[in-house]
């Protein structure tokens, strides 16, 4: 079948080559010998197949045709560098009929020859030019005028001269090279040389005239100036002085007016700025900003969208001791001075990223530190509340601290001086950046905490401000509390308070506030209550917790437990019934009655006072009455806190159950009548909040879950990938597979093409050889034939001779 097809194909190609392609293909398609049908084993619904019917003969003939046009040509032109370009009009354009072609060619030829004077001069129409001027014409102007002689007035050359030099539009030399004879006829008696001399003379004269005119003008202005000066002196009434001055000022000093103009010119142009906002608008903006912040806060409180802003620069942990850390330029803002004090507010407002990180570091550090009983430093803390100061552990870092905070007593005057020095230095140093970069890299990475001020000074001496900062930072990092036990110092309650000031305590989760919460909860549950101090500290924590949750209204069981416990220890022993106190309080045992006051006198003389935190350290110095008063104040505080809790947790569904023990204790155990009047007020305030809540329970209902969809029998749809049905893998993997597959296919195709090319070439070569051979054979035959006839003739002649 193949052979038949081939033959057929050859026939068809030859026929097709001339006629239009479409009818042939239609004809071929209808020919059952041309069509090859790819039978499918299974019929698959909805699958579209491209290759169910093929026309092998057609496609092969197409391929061969293409090869003859490309590959064969290349082969034939192999090793030939010259290319023959056929420029005949429409030689390969099959769309034009031969007759039209001939007509067009003829017209073209006629057009080319049109206007030729001399039909034998073939190159006539080609004119050599230089800058658009015919060279033939230029050649005629043999003598070139040297125009350099009058450089002063280059622009003043007359049009004629220019024309003469460069052959412009002047009428003088307008003549065609072809009409030489006419030129000679028209030429005047003056020669060329004469003409040009004339021209030069003319221009020189003009020049002179112009110069004289300018001089006269100058004279006139000078005269005018002098006149004006005279008049001016008269007007200014200071003739001698001004005269002298003017003479001096005339030459060197630029005019004042000019100067102003210049200045104005150089001055920054006022750019259109946003218009000033009215106060209302400002207030509105501020309000909008606050609203946005509040909305953010609420969102965080509900714990939504925690993972949204992931792009921000990664947080650097406090323990991060990366050796090659770089001090960013922003860090400089951390230490800005104002009147010798650190200026923190600016920094806080800016809310740099670094700042946040730093703060966080510090807070974490704070939490790690234990509780610190003495409040000696609290005053200082309160005033400055500087982050950097907190950063520095107070025991062995005292030197550092003094450096950072000028108010510190130990630092004294030296420090002040130093700060000033720092300031000055900082100004000088601004320009030394590149040098500094190099210097910074030379700093060692670890520093011991200097023991004395002198050592510290020597450490910092000769360094730039940035280097000093680097050193400080490294000292702090190297001596971080988490790195060594000795560094760990005790926490002050104040830190927890500061936390609530700096961070939003209502967040669902917060990297600083949540640990603080847990820490406080542990303080309330784990620390034993053995003394009155413990009670005060505990109540302080309770107040803090209440403050923390005042916005979010989160439930803190430890708080309620503690308040119940505090109430419990204010009662006489053996009254714990109807409620249960939990750790750290015990229903029986030691440390009961810590808050019990029996002294009638003290009860009467009591007045509500603010609990001084210093009591925590100097309780022993107080008299019994004072202690009793403090006890009563604690109790009053407890009542107040209960009241606040009641208000806060009112909305909780089990509010009644939560407050039940406290309610029982308040209503059944406390002997109100013994309390002083003021205390009774507190008591009733708390009780009122507890009592007048309506109990309200709604049965719980789960959120409706989505109905589980019924199982359906729709086929599983699998995406058919380019490389077949191989599924799985990530997108990247799929892409890789696809590319591999594509490459393979392309490679195969290319190999096939090359093979076919080679086959084609070999066929061609073979046919060439065959042709050559057959030609040779024919020629040999011819030769042999002629030789035979020659021989035959010779023999015939010989025979004839012999016969003759």
């Amino acid at each position: 079948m193949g052979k038949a097809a081939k033959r057929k194909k050859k026939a068809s190609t030859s026929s097709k080559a001339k006629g239009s392609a479409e009818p042939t293909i239609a004809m071929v398609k209808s020919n059952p010998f041309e069509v090859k049908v790819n039978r499918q084993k299974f019929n698959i619904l909805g699958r579209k197949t491209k290759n169910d019917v093929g026309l092998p003969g057609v496609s092969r003939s197409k391929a061969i045709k293409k090869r003859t046009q490309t590959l064969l040509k290349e082969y034939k032109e192999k090793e030939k560098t010259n290319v023959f370009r056929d420029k005949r009009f429409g030689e390969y354009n099959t769309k034009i009929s031969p007759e039209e072609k001939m007509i067009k060619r003829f017209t073209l030829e006629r057009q080319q020859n049109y206007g030729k004077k001399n039909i034998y001069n073939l190159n006539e129409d080609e004119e050599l030019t230089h800058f658009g001027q015919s060279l033939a014409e230029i050649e005629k102007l043999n003598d070139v005028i040297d125009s350099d002689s009058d450089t002063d007035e280059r622009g003043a050359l007359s049009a004629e001269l220019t024309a003469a030099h460069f052959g412009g539009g002047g009428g003088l030399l307008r003549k065609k090279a072809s009409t030489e004879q006419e030129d000679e006829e028209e030429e005047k008696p003056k020669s060329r040389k004469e003409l040009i001399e004339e021209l030069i003379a003319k221009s020189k004269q003009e020049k002179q005239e112009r110069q004289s005119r300018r001089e006269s003008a100058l004279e006139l202005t000078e005269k005018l100036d002098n006149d004006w000066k005279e008049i001016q002196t008269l007007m200014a009434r200071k003739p001698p002085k001004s005269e002298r001055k003017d003479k001096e000022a005339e030459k060197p000093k630029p005019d004042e007016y000019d100067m102003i103009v210049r200045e104005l010119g150089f001055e920054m142009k006022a750019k259109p700025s946003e218009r000033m906002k009215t106060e209302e608008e400002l207030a509105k903006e501020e309000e909008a900003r606050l609203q946005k912040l509040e909305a953010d806060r609420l969102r965080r409180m509900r714990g939504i969208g925690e993972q949204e802003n992931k792009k921000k620069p990664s947080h650097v942990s406090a323990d991060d001791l990366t050796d090659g850390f770089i001090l960013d330029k922003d860090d400089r803002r951390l230490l800005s001075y104002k009147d010798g004090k650190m200026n923190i507010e600016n920094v806080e407002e800016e809310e740099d990223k670094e700042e946040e990180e730093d703060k966080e570091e510090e807070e974490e550090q704070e939490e790690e530190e234990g509780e610190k009983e003495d409040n000696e430093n609290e005053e200082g803390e309160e005033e400055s509340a500087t982050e950097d100061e907190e950063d520095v552990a107070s025991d062995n870092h005292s030197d550092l601290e003094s450096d950072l905070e000028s108010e510190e007593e130990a630092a004294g005057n030296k420090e002040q001086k130093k700060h000033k020095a720092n300031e000055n230095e900082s100004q000088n140093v601004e320009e030394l950046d590149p040098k500094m970069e190099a210097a910074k890299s030379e700093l060692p990475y670890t520093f011991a905490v200097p023991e004395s001020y002198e050592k510290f000074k020597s450490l910092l001496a000769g360094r730039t401000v940035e280097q000093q900062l680097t050193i400080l930072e490294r000292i702090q990092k190297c001596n971080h509390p988490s790195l060594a036990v000795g560094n760990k110092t005790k926490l002050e309650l104040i830190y927890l308070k500061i936390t609530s000031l700096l961070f939003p305590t209502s967040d669902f989760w917060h990297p600083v506030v949540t640990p603080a919460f847990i820490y406080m909860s542990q303080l309330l549950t784990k620390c034993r209550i053995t003394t009155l101090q413990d009670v005060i500290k505990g109540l302080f924590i309770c107040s803090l917790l209440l403050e923390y949750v005042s916005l979010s209204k989160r439930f803190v069981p430890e708080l309620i437990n503690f308040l119940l416990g505090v109430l419990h220890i204010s009662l006489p022993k053996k009254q714990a019934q109807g409620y249960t106190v939990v750790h750290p309080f015990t229903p029986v045992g030691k440390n009961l009655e810590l808050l019990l006051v029996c002294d009638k006198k003290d009860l009467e003389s009591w007045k509500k006072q603010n609990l001084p935190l210093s009591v925590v350290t100097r309780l022993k110095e107080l008299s019994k009455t004072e202690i009793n008063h403090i006890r009563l104040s604690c109790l009053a505080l407890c009542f107040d806190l209960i009241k606040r809790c009641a208000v806060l947790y009112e909305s909780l569904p089990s509010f009644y159950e939560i407050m039940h023990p406290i309610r029982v204790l308040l209503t059944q155990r406390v002997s109100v009548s013994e309390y002083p009047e003021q205390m009774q007020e507190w008591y009733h305030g708390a009780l009122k909040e507890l009592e007048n809540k309506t109990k309200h329970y709604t049965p719980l209902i789960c959120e409706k879950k989505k109905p589980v969809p019924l199982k359906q029998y729709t086929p599983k749809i699998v995406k058919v990938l380019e490389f077949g049905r191989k599924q799985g893998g990530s997108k990247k993997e799929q892409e890789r597979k696809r590319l591999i597959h594509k490459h393979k296919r392309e490679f195969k195709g290319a190999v096939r093409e090359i093979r076919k090319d080679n086959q084609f070439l070999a066929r061609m070569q073979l046919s060439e050889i065959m042709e050559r051979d057959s030609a040779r054979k024919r020629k040999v035959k011819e030769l042999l034939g002629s030789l035979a006839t020659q021989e035959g003739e010779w023999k015939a002649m010989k025979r004839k001779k012999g016969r003759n």
Partner: protein
Amino acid sequence: MARPALAASLEAVLGDRGNANRVFEILELLAAKEEEDVLCAARTCRRLFAALLRRGELFAGSLPAEEDALRGNYSAEEKYKIWMRHRYNDCVESLSELLGHDSFQVKESSLCTLMKFWKGSIAFPRHLLKVVVNGLIPIHEDASLLISRFQEYMEYEDVRYFVMKAVTESIGQVMQKIKERPLPFYQQNVFSLISPINMPNKERDMVKFMMKQDNQEEWKVSKLQAHKQAFERMWLTFLKHQLPSGLYKKVLVILHDSILPYMNEPTLMIDFLTVAYGVGGAISLLALNGLFILIHQHNLEYPDFYKKLYSLLDPSIYHVKYRARFFHLADLFLSSSHLPAYLVAAFIKRLSRLALTAPPEALLMVIPFICNLFRRHPACKVLMHRPNGPQDLSEDPYIMEQEEPSESRALESSLWELQSLQNHYHPDVAQAAAILNQSLSEIEDDISGLLELSASELFDKEIKKTSANVPLEFEQVRGLFGKKNDIIAEHFALD
């Protein structure tokens, strides 16, 4: 110093029987006032009598009285031995007295000396052992140090056996004398002596004996059964008497692990455990473990077990240190799917009510615990989901005070407590409680990892969390107490 003199006497006595009377010089010093002297004397005694024992120069067998021996027709050799034996007895006596000496060094030295004698003696010196045991468990002082010194000898099977017997005897005598009054020191001493007793599991393991017997196989001491019996009797005698509460707890803590498995009849402990279970509080919680073993492995029927378990639930369960143990057991007890729904509901309701006072680490454990109960007992899910119930209740139907779970009306209630905990300050707790709103998955949560959760772990976990973004307070800071309605500013002063 008495040392050279003592050394000389020792030489003399050991060297020549004629100098035997110098033994008295040594024995006298045992009663000396100086601690150094006593120590020295004890050491000398040890060397002297150890040498004599080795040489066989002590009389063996039933010992005639000293006077009888002198008068009776014994050979000189025998007389010497009898006499020396009497000196030995004197020495043992004074050493056992020294066990009650003030100084620990003296006590230790005398104890070691006694044990050395013991090793040297031929037959098992039961009398000697009794002396030692009585010295180890004094009535009025804590002897734990000495007891811990003695522990090395308890490795020997025979020593342990006889110590157990001696202790049983001693408890009987002492307790009878003082008539049921608790003796904290004595009982503490006994406990520290007997609690570390490490019983062998198989008879094969019993190979370490201090004394070698001829008929080892038939000897009672080599039988595990006998050991167990002695062990059982010792503990029962010990526990028969009222214990101080600290000791009570200690006993209960080790009961399931190191006592019950080594008893012939563990059911004998029922009385003790039942009483303990009825005490309430932490003791009941601890008794639960032993009871569980009895119920589970020995078919103990305990009436109203669940009612009792229910009554154990009080606010302290979330705060005591045995929390993990209790919840582990409670999980086991409530794992049966045959429990009535009202009972499980009552447990759920009570646990969640108590959770209102619990610390976060306990909440993180108990919320999945409750969820597991729901999964095991789907009938209780009405507590979470009651679509057709009454809309408004003025009171929680559940009665907390009711001791009978069936009458607590728990099934009529809802878990408002967990709803309240959705507002807990700890984000994890709030999240865990939020599960209440959704329908539960089928697979139970694994709470074994949560049982031991501690507060410090919680804190560490929080600290380790990192966040890219730290929100700051946007309200401007106006001083430490600058906020509106600052509670601290209202009630505290910084000065």
